[in-house]
């Protein structure tokens, strides 16, 4: 039993905080949220040069083989800074999928360029119903080897060279779930079209249409129909990363809010001296601390190969707790945080984006419901 970070982890967090304070200030985040491309190449290059893009990638493929815990601590800092860009879809989720299912040739082709940030990859999972569960994957490659259909909520597709696309395969996996094939398709292949979705968070989400895209066996990660496990581990990694991002953002909200409550004077005293405000602030701290311990526990379980309901519990809990933090912070700040130039709404919307990505609360609670034995 040890709830502390080790020296190496503390150093990573300190470096990340420093780098992001310098290169990813709220003004930049605000600017990029309103900008259609929403990406700053120098920022990405900066963090790539620090090796962040290759943290999960093995050393022989140009990465640094960090632990899942370290990656999540980094993402927590990114959440705090509302870091813009495809770090989670590319460096965490797609990387996990390619590592889990890619052939040696595919790994060689994709991962070294992703490790140094030269190339980026994003995930195309959800379809018309917005579901991130494998049972709801309906798109399939037809008998002529062509892919038709549309994937929704594909983050940063405009910045990616590759897409990991989940499609339905014939038959069922060993656990009874519909069989899944994972494809890697370059974004410039004929028939791939992107339409931006206009999300309140300022995150760049796309509908990606596949209009008769030719698919060959080289595009298949592992074997057709064998993508289910990689799909599941990619989703787990995505849920944890979005969880870490939410905890970081909520921690930042807590700090901004408490700092403000100490200096904003009304009726002759700081509003933080009023119990109505104090009690709200106490609940912000409660939510952040409980969310963080749930997240770390789930990360630890995942890192140790324990596949139980911890990730689902953490994702459901963290999303709810952190959204609660954001909403209550708006009430404490009062009118000022309703302004576009105030950072609170960006943190709030980033949390909302995280809460719905890689399985929303309803999806994860259903996993929990099964895990606790509900019929």
């Amino acid at each position, binding site marked *: *039993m040890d*709830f502390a970070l080790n020296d190496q982890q503390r150093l990573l967090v300190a470096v990340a905080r420093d780098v992001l304070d310098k290169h990813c200030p709220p003004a930049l985040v605000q600017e990029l949220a309103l900008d259609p491309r929403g990406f700053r190449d120098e920022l990405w290059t900066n963090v790539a040069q620090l090796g962040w893009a290759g943290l999960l990638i093995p050393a022989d493929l140009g990465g640094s083989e960090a632990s899942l815990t370290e990656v999540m601590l980094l993402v927590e800092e990114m959440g705090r800074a509302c870091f813009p860009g495809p770090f989670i879809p590319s460096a965490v989720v797609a990387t996990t999928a390619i590592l889990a299912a890619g052939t040696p040739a595919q790994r060689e082709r994709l991962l070294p360029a992703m490790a140094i940030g030269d190339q980026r990859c994003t995930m195309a999972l959800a379809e018309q119903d917005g579901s991130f569960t494998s049972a709801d994957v309906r798109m399939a490659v037809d008998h002529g080897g062509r892919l038709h259909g549309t994937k929704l909520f594909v983050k940063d597709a405009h910045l990616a060279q590759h897409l990991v696309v989940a499609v339905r395969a014939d038959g069922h996996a060993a656990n009874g779930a519909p069989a899944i094939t994972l494809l890697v398709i370059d974004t410039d292949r004929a028939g791939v079209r992107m339409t931006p979705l206009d999300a309140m968070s300022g995150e760049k989400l796309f509908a990606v249409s596949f209009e008769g895209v030719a698919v060959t066996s080289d595009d298949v990660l592992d074997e057709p129909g064998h993508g289910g496990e990689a799909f599941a581990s990619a989703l787990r990694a995505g849920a944890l990363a979005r969880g870490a991002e939410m905890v970081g953002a909520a921690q930042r909200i807590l700090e901004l809010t*408490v700092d403000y409550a100490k200096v904003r004077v009304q009726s002759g005293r700081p509003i933080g001296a009023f*119990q109505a405000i*104090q009690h709200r602030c106490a*609940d912000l*701290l409660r939510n952040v601390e*409980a969310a963080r311990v749930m997240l770390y526990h789930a990360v630890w379980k995942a890192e140790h190969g324990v596949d139980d309901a911890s990730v689902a519990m953490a994702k459901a809990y963290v999303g709810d707790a952190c959204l609660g933090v954001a909403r209550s912070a708006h009430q404490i700040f009062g009118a000022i945080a309703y302004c576009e130039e105030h950072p609170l709404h960006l943190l709030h919307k980033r949390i909302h984006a995280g809460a719905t990505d890689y399985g929303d609360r309803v999806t994860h609670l259903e996993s929990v419901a099964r895990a606790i034995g509900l*019929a």
Partner: protein
Amino acid sequence: MDFSLPPDAVAFAATVRRWLAEHPPERFPIDGMDAGYGSGAHSHAFLRALAAEGWISMAWPREYGGQERPLVEKLVLLEELAAAGAPFGPLAGCDQTADAIIRYGTERLRQELLPRIARGEATFWQGFSEPGAGSDLLALTTEARRDGDEYIVRGHKIWSSHAGISTHGLVLARTGRDPRRSHGLSMFVIDNRAPGMEIRPIRNMTGGIYHYEVFLDEVRVPRDMLLGREHEGFVELLKGLDTDRFWGRFYKAPALKRVLAELVTYANTTSRDGVLLARDQGLRRTLAALATELEALRLLFYRIGWMLEQGLPTPYESALAKVLADETGQKVAAFGLELLGPFGALRQDSPWARLGGRLQHIYQTSLSHTIAGGTSEVLRTTVATRGLGLPRDAGGRSALPRDAEARS
């Protein structure tokens, strides 16, 4: 980070489970009400059975008859007992009193009381709250005046749990005049049999008796029954209060998990309008959400346990965790009652009761938890001021010292 228990603790958990299988908790006679905190009913017999295993004194220093087992094993013991629904109600009071005696008790207290605690013979009530001193504990008026080698105590204590079936009270009384209200208070260990003590039960809304009020009419207390330094009883009490909140709620998460498992079974086996309750999406989601909240609660408490074991300061953590524990408990109880519909109201002895009629009792007792041991309001203020550094409320309480949260 490492969320696993050490191998010794895992082995000890298995030992406790085996022991519980050999000593089914429901076979022990009950002598006091289950207040719903997770430590079950009050059973002297069960306490003596724990003592026979050496588990009451397991974490004490060897010089006082303990085994110096690590704190995590104590946590494991409490978790296993709560998960089994065992009646270990008086244990927390024994643990906390022993801890205080070991830290700053007189030689007489150590010699006389520690062996009796270790054998499961001595149990304790807390005489802190008074009719006029609840959340504002420092308003207490019970007085103790020195008379040679004795103190003479006079006052009126209330909301003392299990006072009528315990052996001793820990009574906080004013011993000196001091402009600072938190000073001039002392803590006494008082034998229930001392002349001048009158202990009256308070029947509560459940129909049972858990609290007592205690009238102390010129009760003579030997000087070496002073627990801690004279006039500094409150300051010392505060040191204990924080961990008190931790120990007094640690077993709530496992106990609530036990309740939730019963609700899951009920939902899996009960239909309404031809539909299994477990298939109702709303109920299903609520049960799953409660399960996640209980996991968060369990982890928060383990984290504090780890902090205590590491000797790290916990200025607000126990207050925060207690608020969460008690409010989560109220949610579980209220939802359980709702799930059972009209059957939820039926008491244990009703032939139509479901789940043994336990839910109405859990529901009723849960209402007292956010009041006892520091109200959620007082504790949120503690979290805000000590945890977040927000300014103290200037509204008329400037005389209140930093640490003046009360408990009942």
